[in-house]
C-alpha cells in the first residue's frame, strides 16, 4: 500500500470532519429536510408511479404509443441541463486530448508552485 501524500492525508481528515459535522444538524433543519423528502416522494408517486401503472396495463400497442410520445417529447424539449453528459467517439477523443493538455498544464503549475515555495522559504 502506497503512503499518502500530505495533501491526501489532509483532505482525508477534512472530509471526515465534514461528514461528522453533517450528522449534528439542528433538529429544525432535519425536520424540514424530511418534509422536503416526503414532498419529493409524493411527486414521484403522482408522476412516475402513475406512468408505471398505466404502461403495465397497456400491453404491446400501448407501449409502442408511449415510445412514440417519448420520441416526440425528447426531440422537441429544451436541452436537459441536469442530465449527465454523453459523448460520441469524436467528442471523447477531443476530450482526451484536452485532458492530456490539462495534465501538462497541471504539471507545469505544480512545478511553478514548488519553485515559488522554495523561493519563499529562502526569503
Amino acid at each position, binding site marked *: 500500500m502506497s503512503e499518502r501524500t*500530505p*495533501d491526501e*492525508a*489532509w*483532505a*482525508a*481528515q*477534512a*472530509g471526515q*470532519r*465534514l*461528514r*461528522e*459535522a*453533517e*450528522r*449534528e*444538524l*439542528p433538529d429544525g*433543519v*432535519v425536520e*424540514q*429536510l*424530511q418534509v*422536503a*423528502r416526503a*414532498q*419529493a*416522494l409524493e*411527486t*414521484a*408517486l403522482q*408522476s*412516475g*408511479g402513475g*406512468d*408505471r*401503472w398505466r404502461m*403495465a*396495463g397497456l400491453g404491446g400497442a400501448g407501449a409502442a404509443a408511449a415510445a412514440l410520445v417519448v420520441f416526440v417529447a425528447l426531440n422537441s424539449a429544451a436541452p*436537459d*441541463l*441536469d*442530465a*449527465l*453528459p454523453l459523448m460520441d467517439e469524436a467528442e471523447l477523443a477531443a*476530450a*482526451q486530448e*484536452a*485532458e*492530456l*493538455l*490539462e*495534465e501538462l*498544464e*497541471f504539471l507545469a*503549475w*505544480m512545478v511553478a*508552485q514548488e519553485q515559488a515555495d522554495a523561493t519563499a522559504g529562502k526569503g
Partner: protein
Amino acid sequence: MIAVGMFCFMADEALNQFLASVEKRAYSMALVAVNNSADALDIVQESMLTLARKYADKPPAEWTPLFYRILKNRITDHHRAATVRRKLFGWFSRDDDTDADAGIALAPAPEADEPARRYELNGTVDELHDALHALPPRQQQAFMLRCWEGLDVRSTARVMGCSGGSVKTHYSRAIHALRAQLEDSGDV
C-alpha cells in the same frame, strides 16, 4: 397488477432511502455554497423534486451523480440570481449573515512531531466551512464531490461536466487554497 404494485412500492422505497441518505450532506454542501440556511433548504428541496419528477425511473446507480449534478446546477442558479439582484438593487451582498448554525468545536490536534503536524487539520468545522465557501465555484465543487462525498474522478467529471484532468486540477488547487487559508488563520 399486484406485481406491478409491489414493484412501484419497492422503487419508491428505494428512492426514499436514497434521498434520506443524501439529504443532510446535500443541505450542508448547499449551506457552505450559499451561506444561508433558508436558501440551502430551498435548493435541496428543488433538487429532490427534480430528481423525483424527472429521474426516478433511472437505475438507482445513476441517482448519486444525477442528484449532485442537479444540486450543483441549483446552486449555480442561486448564485446567478443573486448576481442579478446585486446588479439591479446594489445592496445585496454574498457575505450574508449566516444562520445561527452552531459551530462544532473539535478537539485540537494533539502535539506531535513536526513532520506529522503539517498533515494535521486544525481549527473548527466552521472555519473549514468558511474556507470552503471562499473557494472559486469549480474548486469548491471538485473538493465537495471528491473529498466530502467521495466520488471518483470520473463520476466527479460527469457531475461537473468537465474532463478528469480538470477535476484533478480544480481539486488540487482547492486543497492548496484551503490549507493555505486555514494555516494562515493562526491555528497551526
